């Protein structure tokens, strides 16, 4: 059972902002509800007003125009991403990351916007969005802004979003070159579990390799030190150095899922595997 609250449906972007401002600190935006309702059920969160954003025009669905990159409505479900042909073929890493969340039932409701707004350090879509240099389009009392994903998270459960501000779209720029991405997630089970460690690695035909980590710092992070090692060299030794640099950057905690030391070791292992798989994948697509 959930404790009582008022549910209101936002009809437009402005309506959503006005309703949130009116509701004050006990109001919260609602998309899929798969995180929010769990916290409310557990009585960790007591809210007076939920503002459903799902009916706002343009907040669900995807658009991909040549040269414009990909624009994803924030309330799009994770399964919409998994099943989208454009995302599977051109942003495969994002499809893999979305697919790794929860169960099929959860992915039918959970939204990509909710996944990042809840700002779990283990949010699976976050490392993927980090390596794609995504931008977050928000609407709020002070109008609209475009926030680079690298500046979006400020701590566990914390983002730069102000009161009354919501995520409307997630924009991913068109990659300049051919790319191949891999998302590796270590959990206790193959599904319905949060990450112990996750690594996103995107290898680009330009020679750049981008790496992001989940669940091993207060926020999901890019590991630029590891990336710069791979700029000039991609041999076995360089990959080992990069993996070790990723481990150096990680600052995990111990929790119910894993200890700090295990997480650190797994960062190194998973990063190495992810780099190798991404480079091999890129090489294989180049041969076609």
């Amino acid at each position: 059972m959930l404790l009582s609250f008022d549910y209101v449906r936002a009809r437009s972007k402005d309506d959503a902002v006005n309703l949130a401002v009116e509701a004050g600190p006990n109001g919260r935006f609602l998309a899929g509800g798969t995180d929010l309702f769990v916290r409310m059920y557990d009585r960790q969160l007591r809210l007076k007003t939920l503002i459903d954003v799902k009916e706002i025009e343009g907040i669900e669905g995807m658009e991909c125009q040549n040269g414009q990159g990909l624009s994803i409505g924030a309330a799009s479900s994770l399964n919409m991403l998994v099943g989208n042909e454009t995302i599977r073929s051109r942003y495969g890493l994002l499809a893999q990351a979305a697919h790794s969340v929860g169960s099929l039932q959860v992915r039918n409701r959970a939204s990509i916007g909710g996944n990042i707004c809840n700002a779990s350090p283990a949010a699976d879509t976050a490392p993927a969005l980090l390596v794609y240099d995504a931008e977050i389009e928000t609407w709020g009392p002070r109008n609209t802004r475009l926030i680079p994903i690298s500046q979006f998270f400020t701590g566990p459960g914390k983002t730069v979003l102000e009161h009354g501000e919501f995520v409307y779209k997630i924009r991913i720029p068109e990659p300049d070159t051919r790319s191949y991405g891999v998302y590796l997630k270590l959990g206790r089970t193959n599904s319905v579990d949060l990450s112990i460690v996750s690594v996103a690695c995107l290898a680009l035909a330009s020679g750049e390799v981008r790496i992001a980590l989940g669940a091993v710092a207060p926020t999901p992070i890019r590991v630029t030190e590891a990336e710069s090692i791979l700029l000039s060299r991609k041999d076995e030794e360089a990959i080992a150095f990069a993996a070790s640099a990723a481990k150096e950057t990680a600052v995990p905690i111990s929790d119910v899922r894993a200890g700090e030391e295990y997480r650190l070791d797994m960062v190194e292992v998973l990063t190495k595997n992810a780099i190798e798989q991404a480079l091999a994948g890129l090489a294989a697509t180049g041969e076609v």
Partner: protein
Amino acid sequence: MLHNIEMTVNGELVKAKVPSHMRLLDFLREELDLIGAKEGCGKGECGACTVLVEGKAVNSCLMLAVEASGKEVLTVEGLSEGDSLDPIQQSIIDNSALQCGYCTPGMVMSAKGLLLRNPSPTRDEVVEAISGNLCRCTGYARVVDAIMQVAASSKSQDEGSEG
């Protein structure tokens, strides 16, 4: 706050007045007396409350009744036609794929959702489709067998009708 809602449940139009915080699960069980969907964990982990909304499997404990307004909902009670069971239900019986049965309605609805979008899944796809449904007594092998058998028999029927 009360809301007038209107949805199709198992093919029938249902109109009701519900409070904001009523979950779809509570609405089905307490208001419509459709007690097939069970509350296990209440947190979207066990899948005992799985129903189809617009043909897609969802945890009805993580959805509000008001959010389902205007939508089509299918519960385990809507599968059989009179005494004639849905092939998935029959196959669960034929394969002895249940013991206590608490998880079964959710398993069946997850399987239904899978077969609606993919009539001939691989074994891995079946496993994935029910990975959000926990069973603590029967185990999963027989459930997967049961679903695979339905997929196989509908496939052979299709081939038969083409020939």
